[in-house]
């Protein structure tokens, strides 16, 4: 077990290295000279060179990378060009707002998809199976940001039930998920974020459960006279490791994929931050946000693998 954990941890290091390389490369592929953005239009060539040297930009690329990674490891992500503030603080503030709605959405999708998937597999071919399959296909096919727009049209514009955008009067500082006046701002983003993972997870659960139901040992259990309820528990227990893997993967996708939904609802998370960075072409902000999100995704996957190795005895000594 511990050997597996250590091994898995070591495997993560080269991935993280690769992630930093890609994030570093983002600045390189961006068109335009980063120095020009920092200079006043009247600056001379000598000024530009001095600034270039100060930022280490006159060094060869590998050296530049190590300078950059050294800064990142000490928590310094550079300065946002747009408002000249440290990127790190801004990113981590936004990250909290993103991770909470992503967690709620995935948890919702997880519970619902287990129920829907098991029911659909049990009633395979029936009307209810078809309805559930249709919901799943819709969830997979719908662009989440458009779903956001439709939700706004329906709940905010037509019905006036929920606020359209933002995080409410209290802002993100004193936002409370236990206060309806705050929570109602989060409801539509959560719905829009829940549907796509719900679709994917429902399909996977349905496929996995019906696979297990067709296996011989289930027939044996039936023949031994077990109740349908306990057979279902057997099936669910066998799907669990796969479901946990999906949970982690989808959580990661939501943390990264919330950029569009957060933009629709102007939810002040990392996605909204990314949108801001794109609009103002603030590459340091873009780079810092992507780095934090990708690292989070890698760490979530690591965590999921470790949890999986605890609940699924087959993985332990591979």
């Amino acid at each position: 077990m511990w050997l597996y954990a250590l091994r898995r941890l070591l495997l993560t290091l080269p991935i993280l290295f690769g992630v930093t390389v890609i994030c570093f490369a983002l600045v390189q592929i961006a068109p335009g000279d980063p120095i020009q953005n920092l200079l006043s239009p009247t600056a001379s060539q000598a000024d530009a060179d001095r600034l270039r040297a100060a930022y280490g930009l006159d060094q060869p690329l590998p050296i530049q990378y190590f300078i950059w990674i050294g800064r990142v490891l000490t928590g310094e992500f550079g300065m946002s060009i747009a408002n000249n503030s440290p990127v790190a603080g801004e990113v981590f503030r936004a990250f909290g707002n993103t991770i909470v709605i992503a967690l709620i959405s995935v948890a919702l999708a997880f519970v619902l998809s287990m129920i829907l998937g098991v029911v659909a597999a049990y009633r395979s071919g029936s009307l209810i199976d078809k309805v559930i399959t249709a919901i799943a296909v819709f969830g997979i096919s719908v662009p989440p940001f458009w779903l956001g727009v439709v939700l706004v049209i329906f709940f905010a514009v037509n019905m006036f039930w929920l606020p359209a955008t933002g995080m409410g009067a209290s802002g993100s500082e004193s936002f409370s998920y236990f206060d309806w006046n705050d929570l109602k701002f989060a409801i539509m983003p959560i719905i829009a974020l829940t549907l796509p993972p719900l679709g994917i997870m429902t399909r996977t659960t349905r496929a996995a459960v019906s696979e297990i139901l067709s296996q011989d040992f289930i027939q044996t259990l039936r023949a031994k006279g077990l109740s349908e309820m306990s057979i279902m528990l057997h099936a669910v227990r066998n799907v669990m490791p796969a479901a946990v893997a999906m949970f982690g993967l989808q959580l990661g996708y939501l943390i990264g994929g919330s950029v569009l939904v957060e933009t629709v609802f102007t939810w002040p998370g990392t996605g909204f931050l990314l949108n801001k960075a794109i609009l103002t072409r603030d590459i340091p902000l873009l780079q810092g946000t992507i780095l934090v999100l990708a690292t989070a995704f890698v760490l979530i996957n690591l965590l999921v693998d470790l949890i999986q190795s605890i609940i699924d005895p087959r993985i332990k000594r591979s």
Partner: protein
Amino acid sequence: MSDISAPALFPAAAPVHVRGYWASVWNRLRYDYVTLFCLAVIILIVLSAVFAPMLAPMDPDRSSMANRLRAIGDRGYILGTDEQGRDMLSRLLYGGRVSLAMGILPVMFATVIGGMFGVIAGFFGGKVNMLIMRTMDVFFAFPSVLLAVAISGSLGGGFTNQLITLTVVLVPPLCRVAETATSQIRSMDFVDAGRASGASSISIIVHHVLINVMSPVLVYASTLVSVSIILASGLSFLGLGVSPPTADWGLMLSTLRQSIYVQPLVSAIPGIAILITSIAFNLVSDGLRQAMDVKG
């Protein structure tokens, strides 16, 4: 997952002798009405995009301040007008060209590039495999939307940049599927038989591997078309797509977002187009997957 009902659709007493793999795939497909219907929808959408100049009632880029945000059916605007008074139907038809291209072209490029790397990695194994697949793993460390936003955000908007971005995002998953399929084929005895008759690796790849790897890769690629369309529309929604005034479903959705209080229905139209196209591609690839699951 083939349903229990699928074999029953096979006319058991039919004297048709199934010739070859693709013939048997078609034989299954032609009784799958859902897939056929979705295929028809896709063909219709493609045709309407191709013939947009003939079908569009108006110039998609001509704005008219007097006719801003007309309702559906108002004054001859069948689907209303947008916030600049441009005809929605015409823009939708023209926008389909960009959106479909963004669904299909990146998948095609990524299939060729990712498939090539995957086959090489799977066939040669060892260090080559390590190098290729570990590099792909790094890309898998990014959720796809995030990777798309990262690359596109750095490169900037525009048709070509969006194409590059989506291709880069789609290469790793296709590479992985091709690699898995290839390494399965590589361990088959007929590959050894080919080698035993003195064939070079290239010859074995061309004659024996590709023909077998093609169907799983194509089935997987077909599932990515709708992913690509949604990703592309998302990028356009963030302003990273084609530059205005060129129409594109994601961009239309983005600009109309300001108008949901005035014309909620019209504002939702581009999204419906994306949704229908994406559902159709998803269901067709589901059908293909089932039809191609022929034990050969």
